[in-house]
C-alpha cells in the first residue's frame, strides 16, 4: 500500500487540514468534513469505512402478482386455456403455459411477438409437487427490448416438446437440462449428456440426488475403505 511519492493528491488534504483546525469535534463536526470536500471527489479518506446507508422505508416484500397486458391478451386469444397463468414477479413477466402447446407458443412468440432470442432454458425441481419440474425459458426481444419468461410444468418421465427447431440455441441447453434433471425433450436431434460423463448415474440437480452416494461408492470400490465424508 505504498503511495507513489511523485503523485500529488490534492483531494486528500482537506480532511487532514480540517482535522488539525478543529481537533476536538468528533461528533457533529466529523460528518461535515466529507461533504465539504465532496465536490472535489476523493471521499475515500474522509468517509469512515463501512458506513451504512440510512434505513430505507419498510416496503412490502416483493411478491408475485397477477399480470395482464396486451401481450398476454394476444397470447390468450391464440392459445386459450393453454396459457395457464401470467404473473409479475419483481417486475418480470412470467407466463405459465401448458406443456403440450409449448412448441407452438414458442414459435408464436418468436414470429409474431418478436421474441427472437432464446436467452436461457433451464429447469427447477419441486419434488413434492405432482408435476415436479418447471421448465423455464427466458426469451428476449431485440425489437421491444423486453424479456418474457415462459414456464411449463412437467412430471417425471413426461416428455417435454423440444424447441430446437424454433431456436437452434436450445440444443445444448436442453441437453444440459436432460443431463442435470433427466427431463426428456421430445424431438431433440441428439439428446445425450453434455457436462457429465455418459456413464454417470442420476441427475445431480434433482433435489433428491444424494451428493455423497457416488463418491462413497467409488472410494469403497477403488480404495477399499469407508469414505470419511
Amino acid at each position, binding site marked *: *500500500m505504498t*503511495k*507513489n511519492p511523485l*503523485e500529488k*493528491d490534492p*483531494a*486528500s488534504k482537506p480532511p487532514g487540514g480540517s482535522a488539525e483546525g478543529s481537533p476536538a469535534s468528533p461528533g457533529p463536526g466529523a460528518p461535515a468534513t*466529507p461533504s465539504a*470536500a*465532496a465536490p472535489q*471527489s*476523493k*471521499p*475515500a*479518506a*474522509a*468517509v469512515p*469505512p*463501512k*458506513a*451504512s*446507508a440510512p*434505513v*430505507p422505508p419498510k*416496503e412490502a*416484500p*416483493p*411478491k*408475485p402478482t397477477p399480470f395482464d397486458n396486451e401481450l398476454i391478451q394476444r397470447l390468450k386469444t391464440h392459445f386459450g386455456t393453454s396459457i395457464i397463468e401470467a404473473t409479475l*414477479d*419483481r417486475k*418480470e413477466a412470467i407466463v405459465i403455459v401448458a406443456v403440450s402447446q409449448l412448441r407452438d407458443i414458442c414459435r408464436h412468440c418468436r414470429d409474431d411477438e418478436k421474441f*427472437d*432470442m*432464446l*436467452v*436461457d432454458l*433451464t429447469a*427447477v*425441481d419441486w419434488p413434492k409437487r405432482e408435476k415436479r419440474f418447471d421448465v*423455464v425459458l*427466458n426469451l428476449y426481444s*431485440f425489437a421491444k*427490448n423486453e*424479456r418474457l419468461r415462459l414456464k411449463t410444468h412437467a412430471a417425471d418421465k413426461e416428455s417435454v416438446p423440444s424447441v430446437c427447431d424454433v*431456436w*437452434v*440455441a436450445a*440444443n*445444448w*441447453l436442453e441437453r444440459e437440462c436432460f443431463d*442435470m434433471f433427466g427431463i426428456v425433450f421430445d424431438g431433440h436431434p441428439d439428446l445425450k*449428456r*453434455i*457436462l*457429465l*460423463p455418459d456413464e454417470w448415474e442420476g441427475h*445431480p*440437480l434433482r433435489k433428491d440426488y444424494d*451428493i455423497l452416494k457416488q463418491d462413497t461408492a467409488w472410494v469403497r470400490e477403488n480404495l477399499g475403505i469407508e469414505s470419511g465424508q
Partner: protein
Amino acid sequence: MEEPRKNPGSNVSTTVLGADEIILNMGPQHPSTHGVLRVKLKLDGERVVGSECYIGYLHRGVEKIAEHRSYQQFAPYVDRMDYVAAVSNGLGYCEAVEKLLGVEAPPRARVVRTILTELQRIASHLVWLATHALDIGALTPIFYCFREREEILKIYEKYCGARLTTHAFRIGGLQYETYDGFENEVKRFCQDFGSRIDEYETLLTENRIWTGRTKGVGILTREDAIALGVTGPMLRASGVQWDLRKAMPYAAYDQYQFDIPVRNAGDTYDRYLVRMEEMRQSRRICLQAVDNIPSGPIMARIGKVLKPPPGEVYHSIEAPKGELGYYIVSDGTTQPYRVRVRPPSFINLQALDRMVRGALVADVVAIIGTTDIVLGEVDR
C-alpha cells in the same frame, strides 16, 4: 463447400478428394483450446465438414453447490466460473441477489463497481488478445498485453488483496473502501492505456499475416448469431448493435457516455476490431467514472442473514464474453432454492460448429480463439 457424397451401394461416405473422411480429435490437451475442450473434427482432407464439442472436463457442479450454501457463502464460487473475469461474475451475482431482496447498492458502491468491472473487461480482453494472437502465430502481443493486465491486477490486489478470484463485491455493496490513491492509479492506467491499444493495433490491424488469417474466417451471420443465442462482442461483430449496458442499464452505466462498437462482416477480423474498440470504450467509462465517485456509504443496510422473500429473479449483465445471467429462485430460506447461471461462453461455444464448417484445420484454432471461451464457465 460441397457436401460429402455417398458411394453407391455403400454406407461409407466418400469425400471430394475421393478419400474417406477422417476424424481428428483436437484437445482436450491442445494448447489452443484454452483449457480442456475437446473438439471432434470430421475432415475431408484439410477441410472441416463437421465438428462436435465435448465439454464438461471442468464441471464442478456450481449450481448444485449453491443449493447448499447461504447467499453470501456462494458469492466466492461465482468467481471460479469465468476466472479471467471474476469481478464481472461477482457483479452479476450480487446484483441478482439484491434484486431478489429488493435492495439497491448505494451510489458510491455502484460507481466503484462500474470502474472495477470495466477494468475487468479490459483485463479479460487483454487475455483474449494475447492468447488469440499467440494461437495464430503472433508471438509479440502477449508480452504487451500481460504488461498492461498486470497493472489492473495490481489495482485489484491493492483494493481487495486478490488478483484473480477477487470476490470484490458483496451483496448490498462493497466490503472495502477504495484505498488511498485508487482514483489516481486508475486514472494513470487509463491515460497510458489509450496509446497502448494503438500499440497493439500497429502490431496486428494491418499486418498482412493477421488479416490473412482472420478476414473471412469463421463467419457468423446476423440471423445465425441471434438464433444461436450468441451475445457479447460476437453478436456485435455480426451486425447487431446490442449491449446490455445500454439496453438494460445496471450498476452506474446510465450515467456515462460510451459507444457500442458494431461491425457487419461477422468474421474473426471484425470480432477482433470490436473487442479492440470495446477496450477503448471501457477506458472511456473508467475515466468518466473515476473523476466523479460520489461520497457516501458503500453498503446498503441489509441484515447479516439474508432471507429473500419467495420468488424468482433473472438478472443479467454484459460480461466481457457476453450476457451473463443469474436466474435465482428463493423459497424464503437462507439458501437459494435454485441458482441457474446463464454462461455466455457455453452458449457462444455452441456456435463453433456453425463457424468451423468449411474452414481449414488451422482456422479452427483461430475460430476457437475468437469465440473467447473460458472453460471454467462453459463447464461450471
